[in-house]
């Protein structure tokens, strides 16, 4: 596998009326081509903002930290995403090498333009296809994602399609430009389980066929277990754990990941009590000092957690967690 993207020290703040909010705090990770990385966390953990930063798709009041470095490795050399300024340059990442699919496909399609016209439009912007070629490819893509009667669907509007169908059309549209990286932001959350299973299958087929990298944002650890190769867990803008899907789900190293798993209802033991993580996620205006999770952590190690920001240490090969429990220098504490 070859490296697809390197994210180093990504920090992102927003200037708001109530003060400066840190949405993403010193996040670093890499993704290989063909890798599916699950990005997990509660609402407000900064997962969507992190993913959107990869294509600098953030509102005007966003301020990137000076140490932020995002490098996209394309066939014709690396691209420094942070240095892209004009709309023209931005096309390299937005809809070009990186595509984005959203949670709510009804809100992502323009209601008064047919599905087909929207697919063709983006192909004309990002590729050198003629309108006829663009139409042919679009219909082919609709067919590939399992939409029957693609010719008819091409001329239809978003409201004429069911939820599962719209999400398939969204995926077809996102893939038709052959992106190297697909960001899927809660793509199955609004769908029924049976349709979710179909969409997950489809996405797996796509990875094996196109060999692209996928960042799969979801709060559903079950979906992650079924789709991802690696998992990154975020809390309040910080990455707290990162590793292979088996390691993170079977041997969660960070207390937050353990808390998420304990709160999850599973069918293996329906009598097991559901254990919520105590307290609410703090407001981004009142970020705790030290470890951001220390106010809710059940394994807190005294004052150190409230003072010192934990750095990443290896729990095992390719499995790291940012928690003082795993500090190599602290030894047995």
């Amino acid at each position, binding site marked *: 596998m070859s490296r697809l993207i390197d994210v180093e020290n990504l920090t992102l703040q927003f200037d708001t009326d109530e003060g400066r909010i840190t949405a993403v705090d010193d996040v670093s990770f890499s993704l290989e081509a063909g890798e599916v990385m699950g990005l997990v966390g509660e609402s407000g953990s900064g997962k969507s903002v992190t993913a959107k930063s990869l294509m600098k798709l953030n509102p005007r009041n966003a301020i990137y930290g000076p140490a932020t470095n995002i490098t996209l490795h394309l066939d014709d050399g690396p691209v420094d995403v942070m240095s892209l300024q004009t709309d023209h340059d931005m096309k390299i990442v937005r809809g070009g090498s990186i595509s984005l699919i959203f949670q709510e496909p009804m809100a992502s399609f323009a209601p008064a333009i047919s599905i087909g016209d929207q697919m063709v439009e983006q192909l004309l912007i990002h590729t050198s296809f003629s309108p006829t070629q663009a139409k042919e490819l679009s219909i082919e893509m609709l067919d590939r994602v399992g939409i029957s009667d693609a010719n008819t669907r091409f001329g239809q509007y978003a409201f004429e399609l069911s939820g599962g169908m719209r999400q398939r059309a969204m995926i077809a549209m996102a893939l038709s430009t052959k992106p190297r990286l697909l960001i899927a932001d809660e793509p199955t959350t609004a769908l029924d389980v049976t349709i979710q*299973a179909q969409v997950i299958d489809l996405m797996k087929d796509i990875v094996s066929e196109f060999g692209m990298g996928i960042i799969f944002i979801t709060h559903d*650890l079950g979906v992650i*277990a079924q789709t991802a190769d690696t998992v990154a867990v975020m809390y309040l803008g910080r990455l707290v754990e990162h590793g292979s899907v088996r390691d993170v789900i079977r041997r969660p190293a960070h207390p937050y990941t353990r808390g*998420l*798993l304990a709160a999850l209802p599973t069918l293996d033991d329906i009598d097991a009590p*559901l254990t919520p993580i105590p307290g*609410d996620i703090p407001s981004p205006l009142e970020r705790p000092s030290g470890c951001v999770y220390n106010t809710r952590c059940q394994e807190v190690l005294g004052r150190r957690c409230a003072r010192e920001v934990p750095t990443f240490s290896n729990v095992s090969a390719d499995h790291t967690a940012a928690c003082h429990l795993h500090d190599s220098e602290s030894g047995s504490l």
Partner: protein
Amino acid sequence: MKPLITAQGLSVHYALRGGLIGPAPLVRAVENVTIEIAPGSFFGLVGESGSGKTTLGRAMLRAAPISKGNVLFDDGEVEYSLKNLGKKDLKDYRKRAQLIFQDPYAALSPRMTVRDIIAEPLEVMRLTKSRAETDERVREIAAKCRLNVEHLRRFPHAFSGGQRQRISIARALVSGPKFIVADESVAALDVSIQADVLNLLKAIQEEMGLTFLFISHDLSVVAHVCDHVAVMYLGRLVETAPTRALFSAPRHPYTQALLSAIPSLDPDDRGKAQKLEGEIPSPTNPPPGCKFQTRCPHAIDRCRVEEPILEAAGTQHNVACHKWQELSRRS
């Protein structure tokens, strides 16, 4: 024990706006559903979008029209037949049966304080005699939902999703209901908050002796909180059973497919799920025979012409499938 609430052959039909020719098409949102909910039960209702579970819940609150059949309510104090309920009785029923909504962001008025939101049902239904009594009642119910006096003075925007849902719960409980319909009440919440709200609902149910109809598309949640489950598909009840029986031995192919589609937490289970093809048909144009036949992997000719009726498959376990016996022998 006498059921608290009973749906008897309940149907809810809506007429769509007609075309130029012919009669207006009819949406059979709920068709011939019979269920009994025992007092003190946490009754789960599951199914995909479009299965009619919300409509059934609303009909049991008299918030959807009852086209055929009836809903009977008997809490030991009053007996109501919801099909023909007078104005006065309906008002009294509103006090006894309440709804908790899905979206805690849309359900609360941003211009009212939490105190006013919770007090509104008391004031609208004139259940209290003085402002002091209202405040007393609001504080009492808020405390049960883990909201303090300080919270009552604020506006909803100051609260997180979980706190807002606790406000919605307090409002539903303030009139002292016996029967609560919780429609996807935890679907919009993060897992940790979801666990918290579910635990709260269970605790309140036991403490106040409430009966819940818990509508959800999430079978893992239903498995953990409900004692009895009914599965709906295209307006019909396809299976109903005590929770343990339903999850250990699902009889209907649709229930089996739903269970199998839940993503497992074990990464090595990949690809083991039994996949259901296609989507739920439109209720304006349902298929003949068994409504599930278009997606059922076991459908035979009989399923395409004759609609199966619910039959007993165990203690309190009913299933509507022509082939359930054959299928359960096979497994």
